[in-house]
């Protein structure tokens, strides 16, 4: 069932650029970049339980890697993504090592410092980064054989491919040995150790992975916006990623998508309602989300889904479940029947 849902989302995502205006498509492209970054943060926070307020720093590192390689060395855009990922992986590892000694709010503080220092470091190395003038990296042009695509569609689809890859990878990680180890580490470090989980190894790996994801997200961001400057990578960015994973749902893969949609669209809508009150609305919505949906949107969906789906262990009486479903949603015959059987 879950796979059918994901397939549906994929189809939606592929068809999207052909049904929405170019402006909306460019917004969705940003959503993809933020979603990949949020995915990384979720790996760190949701799955391995380490709070980081400095995710924006790795995002910036990835974005600048791409921008510098494209603008100064003429690299093709997609080729820069693995480089960004590798550099950020190393950086995340480097941060993860001292982070082993810290936990909870102390880690949050140190990573907060990282986020605050990022714009300054970008400015300091202005020979490389362009400093406050920023760096322009023109987005990739549509290749000749695909010239029926508009520029915005092409960039969106490129980013979609990358995003899909990152999501599949994440799902694999989460379901596999690493994911289980991370959850064990998060829930009970002492027990995990007795089970033979090498805490240090997994925690630093979590940092490195999450940083790599942020780096890829940053690279996608640079590709789609075409310009990087220190003002884009301040504290607000790290806050946004945190908001994204909490709103979307901690320790979920799909949550990253909802979170990214939230942080891209809500500020814009809030500003449309009232420019001066936009921040108040955004902060207020965030707070309310914590009261109403502490497990995020995905948490809500799962709760709703649990009511629809027959419970495991119960015979799942055919008539009964169909009745349940009948009230819950209009139902599409074939899919539901398959589920009930299981």
């Amino acid at each position, binding site marked *: 069932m879950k796979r*059918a*849902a994901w397939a*549906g989302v994929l*189809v*939606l995502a592929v*068809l*999207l650029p*052909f*049904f*929405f*205006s*170019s*402006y*909306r498509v*460019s*917004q969705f492209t*940003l959503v993809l970049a933020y979603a990949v970054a949020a995915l990384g943060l979720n790996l760190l926070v949701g799955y391995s339980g380490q709070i980081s307020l400095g995710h924006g720093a790795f995002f910036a590192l990835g974005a600048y890697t791409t921008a510098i390689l494209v603008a100064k060395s003429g690299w093709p855009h997609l080729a820069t993504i693995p480089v960004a990922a590798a550099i950020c992986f190393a950086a995340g590892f480097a941060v993860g090592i001292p982070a082993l000694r810290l936990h909870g709010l102390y880690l949050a503080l140190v990573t907060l410092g990282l986020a*605050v220092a990022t*714009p*300054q470091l970008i*400015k300091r190395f202005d020979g490389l980064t362009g400093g*406050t*003038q*920023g760096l*322009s990296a*023109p987005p990739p042009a549509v290749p000749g054989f695909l010239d029926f695509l*508009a*520029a*915005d569609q092409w960039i969106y689809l490129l980013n979609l491919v990358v995003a899909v890859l990152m999501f599949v990878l994440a799902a694999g990680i989460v379901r596999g040995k690493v994911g289980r180890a991370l959850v064990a580490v998060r829930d009970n470090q002492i027990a995990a150790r007795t089970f033979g989980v090498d805490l240090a190894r997994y925690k630093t790996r979590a940092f490195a992975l999450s940083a790599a994801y942020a780096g890829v997200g940053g690279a996608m*961001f640079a590709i789609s*916006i*075409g*310009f*990087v*400057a*220190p*003002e*884009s990578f301040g504290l*607000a960015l790290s806050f946004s990623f945190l908001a994204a994973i909490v709103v979307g749902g901690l320790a979920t893969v799909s949550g990253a998508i909802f979170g990214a949609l939230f942080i891209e669209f809500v*500020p*814009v809508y809030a*500003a449309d309602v009232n*420019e*001066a009150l*936009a*921040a108040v609305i955004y902060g207020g919505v965030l707070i309310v989300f914590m009261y109403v949906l502490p497990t995020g949107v995905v948490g809500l969906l799962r709760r709703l889904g649990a009511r629809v789906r027959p419970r495991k262990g119960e015979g799942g009486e055919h008539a009964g479940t169909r009745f349940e479903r009948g009230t819950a*949603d*209009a*139902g*599409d015959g074939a*899919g539901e029947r398959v589920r009930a059987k299981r």
Partner: protein
Amino acid sequence: MALLTLAMVLASGCGRSDDDAGVGGGGGAEAAPGITDTSIKLGGSYPFSGPASAYASIASGAKARFAAENAKGGIDGRKIEFLALDDGYEPQRAVTNARRLVEQEKVFALFNTLGTPNNLAIWDYANQQKVPHVYVATGASAWGADIAKHPYTTGWQPDYVSEAKGYAEFLKKEKPKAKVAVLYQNDGFGKDLLGGFEKAVEGSDIQIVARESYEVTDPTITSQMRKLGASGGDTFLNITTPKFSAQAIAAVAKSDWKPLHILNNVGASKKLVLEPVGLENAKDIVSMTYFKDPEDPQWADDPAMQEYKAGMKEHEPKADPLEAFCAYGWTAASTMIEALKAMKEPTREALMDAVRNMDIEIPMLLPGVKVTTTPDDGFPIQATQIMKFNGENWELQGEVIEAGT
């Protein structure tokens, strides 16, 4: 059910129009987007939220000016619609706003977007789409320096390099052997001004004996001021934004250092800077300006000033007309209106033609300061006038200095 959701989401997309299919054109004699017989649509991106939101008053001034023009019947019967979007001073939001304004709102031109990095983020896009990107609200010299590469972009205010030249000229006359200590904001604005000043004093007897920078994220600038005070400089070049201008003036007032104090235009507001510091501490500070100061009593009976204040009161009552930023926005919008009036055809090319061939006076600009452009001169205003604070108001000094070549 899933298919239904799918269909619903895609349907909400409202489809794509032909314009989205490729890079927008807009050249030639065909009717341009954003302009009809009864309306002209303009768009801009400002920091209405976030740390730079004090500058959003510029948008208020501009909106009021356009509304005042509409009240008079508009331009040839066309009413101006000005859409100002919030970007929180973040370049990526400026980019999304620009895309929204050009592709979804289909504005005729982008007007007066604020912030150097934000405009740098969108000027390639605007020029590619051949959308006029005019009178941007920043003094970076980049906007006029390379017309060939970005023909659709122009600045408006005297750029920071011209401003710096003005100060250099003033010093060469008043204090030819000055030893200058500089405080500057560590970003494009500060560096541009400092760089312009350094270049302008080359070859003269003026020396720069100390340079201290600060970040907008610094809580205080005490240590910078201490170092500058101890540098042996007899002149203080203060390149700061209002909050830090106030801190710097206060620091000088409290110390034993009494230099000739030159304050840049952005930090020269009586309301935002000098009053909080205490007017008596601001005596003899030198700055420059190019438009009429709403707080200056000498313009109280000036018809342009009266029109400005009345227009602000009527169309943007929540804004404060005494704020220099509002006057800035009003005056920039006036320039835009002149350009639209001078436009020979309702096309973007014609607008750029008008923008690049101007020689006019705008009522709210100082007498002697004109908006002049030619196809080779991409800097609309390069004239400034030195002013000195007499303890109560800014007093204009000398003549208008023309910094352009």
